[in-house]
């Protein structure tokens, strides 16, 4: 009994949050899943049954392997567990095979690999200031951040309903960010390099990593006003960084639009916070201007932004606008009737909690939203009612069935662009971290 009481004692709120969301994920197992389910089953089959040389050539299914090799190895490792659930799913010719055991295995694999995400969130909480002395657990920044990350609406519906493996990938990213905050730069760079070879979409934020590490790690100290001190350049560090595979994207247009912020990162370094801001900007810019962007890519900006949101009121405001509109833009992903209550309830849960808890956290500063922003966010309610409940019963449904999607995209684009703009401004107007730092 004593052991049980220690386990369930006061400090275990993090464990309770993590276990709670894991159980919720188990309840989402019987929900609708998209073609991504078949995609991953196919990749399990390819990596299990074929020799490595054939992996990127196999084309029996339309869903060919289009992620980097580490992900292929990941599927290969999973396939060795899969064979104990249902051998048939590993047959390349079993297109669209989805027996109940296959479903169970796939869903559990996502839930299980989320463990890395949970660990990363735990590490991120250590980087968040506990400056505001609050005895109340629910008002601590650590608690709010844990809820915002562990119970993130977008991640829940994309990974555990729609079906993808973003959880552990974002875990890698958040962990590498946490390591940079903790000044463990080599680990951070290594983790990011590994991440790139799992899913190349993270190339979008590579410039932020590159410039930050070059500027703040390879140059070991700054001049008093924060500008570069050339004679502190450490060749050793540069080489060691280069030794960890370091790619810089020069391909898509998007990251170039984040270039001014990257210059800012070089000339006016603001420590890990500045790096994070730049990373988010890279992700957002690529989302807004990139090629063949998926709506799920908004998570690349939302999740890191959570770390900033519990630090400053201004960041919290930007975060809430970005998150609420970003999450709403994911609604068209789940278009089936049984999932409608789930997406509305979870969206309300996350939105109400995030807005209220951050408002409470920053209640001593000016209000988070002005009237324009409040109106805009409230407008999402009528928009949803119109798109899902009114429109299907009107005569326009037959002639112009794309109207709800169009309205959703346009409305959310306004919010995301606004958040992007505000974030950009905040990068330039914030004071630099201009003290000499001995690294």
């Amino acid at each position, binding site marked *: 009994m004593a052991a049980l009481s220690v386990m369930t004692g006061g400090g275990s709120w993090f464990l309770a949050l993590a276990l*709670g969301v894991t159980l919720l994920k188990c309840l989402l197992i019987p929900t609708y899943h998209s073609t991504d389910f078949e995609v991953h089953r196919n990749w399990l089959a390819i990596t299990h049954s074929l020799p490595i040389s054939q992996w990127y050539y196999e084309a029996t299914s339309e869903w060919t392997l289009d992620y980097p090799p580490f992900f292929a190895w990941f599927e290969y490792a999973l396939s060795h567990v899969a064979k104990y659930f249902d051998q048939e799913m590993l047959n390349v010719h079993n297109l669209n095979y989805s027996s109940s055991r296959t479903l169970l295995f796939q869903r559990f694999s996502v839930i299980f690999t989320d463990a890395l995400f949970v660990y990363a969130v735990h590490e991120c909480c250590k980087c968040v200031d506990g400056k505001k002395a609050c005895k109340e657990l629910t008002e601590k920044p650590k608690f709010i951040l844990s809820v915002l990350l562990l119970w993130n609406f977008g991640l829940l519906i994309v990974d555990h309903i729609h079906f993808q493996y973003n959880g552990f990938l974002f875990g890698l990213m958040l962990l590498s960010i946490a390591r940079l905050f903790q000044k463990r730069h080599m680990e951070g760079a290594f983790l990011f390099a590994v991440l790139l070879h799992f899913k190349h979409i993270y190339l979008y934020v590579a410039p932020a990593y590159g410039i930050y590490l070059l500027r703040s790690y390879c140059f070991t100290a700054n001049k008093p006003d924060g500008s570069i001190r050339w004679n502190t350049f450490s060749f050793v560090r540069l080489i060691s960084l280069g030794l960890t595979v370091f790619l810089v994207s020069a391909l898509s247009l998007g990251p170039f639009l984040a270039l001014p912020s990257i210059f800012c990162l070089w000339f006016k370094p603001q420590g890990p916070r500045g790096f994070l801001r730049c990373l988010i900007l890279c992700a957002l810019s690529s989302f807004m201007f990139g090629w063949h962007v998926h709506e799920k890519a908004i998570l690349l900006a939302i999740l890191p932004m959570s770390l900033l949101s519990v630090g400053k009121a201004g960041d919290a405001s930007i975060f809430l606008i970005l998150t609420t509109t970003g999450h709403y833009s994911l609604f068209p992903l789940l278009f089936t009737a049984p999932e409608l209550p789930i997406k509305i309830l979870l969206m309300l849960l996350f939105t109400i909690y995030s807005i209220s808890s951050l408002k409470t956290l920053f209640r001593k500063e000016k209000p988070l939203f002005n009237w324009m922003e409040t109106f805009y966010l409230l407008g999402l309610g009528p928009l949803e009612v119109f798109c899902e409940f009114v429109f299907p019963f009107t005569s326009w449904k037959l002639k112009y069935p794309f109207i709800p999607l169009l309205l959703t995209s346009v409305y959310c684009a306004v919010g995301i662009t606004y958040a992007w703009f505000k974030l950009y401004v905040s990068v330039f107007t914030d004071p630099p971290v201009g003290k000499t730092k001995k690294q």
Partner: protein
Amino acid sequence: MEKWYLMTAVVLLGLTVRWTVSLNSYSGAGKPPMFGDYEAQRHWQEITFNLPIKQWYFNSSDNNLQYWGLDYPPLTAYHSLLCAYVAQFINPDWIALHSSRGYESQAHKLFMRATVLIADLLIYIPAVVLHCCCLKEISTKKKIANALCILLYPGLILIDYGHFQYNSVSLGLALWGVLGVSCDWDLLGSLAFCLAVNYKQMELYHSLPFFGFLLGKCFKKGLKGKGFVLFVKLAGTVVASFTLCWLPFFTERAQALQVLRRLFPVDRGLFEDKVANIWCSVSVFLKIKDILPHHVQIIVSFCLTLLSLLPACVKLTLQPSPKAFRFTLVSCALSFFLFSFQVHEKSILLVSLPVCLVLSEIPFMSTWFLLVSTFSMLPLLLKDDLLMPSVVTTMAFFIACATSFSIFEKTSEEELRLKSFSVSVRKHLPRFTFLPRIIQHLFIISVITMVLLTLMTVTLDPPQKLPDLFSVLVSSVSCLNFLFFLVYFNIIIMWDSKDGRNQKKIH
């Protein structure tokens, strides 16, 4: 209240869990010719919509009572009629007379599940939130945690949103009754409770405590003055509400009698199926159904039930208080469950509701009871293919209770409300200090047994000679646990008044 947003989050989470459970299978899914409770509810919509009221409870060519005849009071019938109107608007095939028998489709399932959610949202959930907000002497955070635990109680979720029933309506109405009567809004409270009884006759399990508490209040106010006025008003409210519900059936004597016959099927015997009460457990060794003649069974059951609940109810009448009322609800409902006639395993929910209400006072024992109550319905849940949601919701409930109330730290004599009882015993046996430790050990044994039995039922096949082995084991183990709880709750009630003063010093 401050932190309203956390309470909203808790309600939204409760709703989400409910809806995700409802994505699973329901009772009798794809099992012609009889199907299950889901088909029963659909059939009642069909009957109430297509036939005139006079024919609802009678056997006829259009209404075959053998195929899920109406056996709940009129309010259920009116509710079914209301749902039928909505069904008619969406798709008349769902309730077409005769041809809709056994109708199953994804759209229809969505509709049926939605009716449960809406009823829950309108009746049960607001009552729970109000109850938690009105709790005295605890912090806002604890109130919210309390609401979370009650809303996550697996038994009700699995039966209503899995198996398919509308228990949240009757339990919600009963809860409104409890709230009204505890806050001295006696007339509204009794009205709500009368509606609950008229929705499901099993709510009569709660009727004696209501009667005792209200009678006690009348006595306290003085039978010659205000008390008498209150008594008359209450009697008037009860009569009026019953008349209103039964009005269409009072036109002919035969009507009312037939309804009563459907509600109380005394011909059906002492028990059906495996249920965790005394009669079923004893009949493992002693075939009572064969030994005792039918009318003797009824009398024995009646007497035992009355004997076990009388002390608590009498005490409640003599010393009415909201706290005693809640505890008496528990013990009375539990007595009925254990000793009464024709009890179904789902009736344990009638005991679970009052236990949820005392969760904040004795968190450790309440959590234990609620876990056992869910476990006792395991055979039913497995039959409905609800293993995954059962395990998940039970774990979620356990984690919520354990972190909200730190239940494992609250196992001392005072916290178990056993202080005055132990003190009394120590007058005769000075060394009687080991009660909390015994209880802790019993808890561990109970949990281990439940986990083991669950694993066995799921993974193993029963031996051929004893095909019901696992169901019998589950109900017998649950029955033992329930007997222990009956004794425990009665001890708390009977030794209560001295406890009250001690508690104030501790907090």
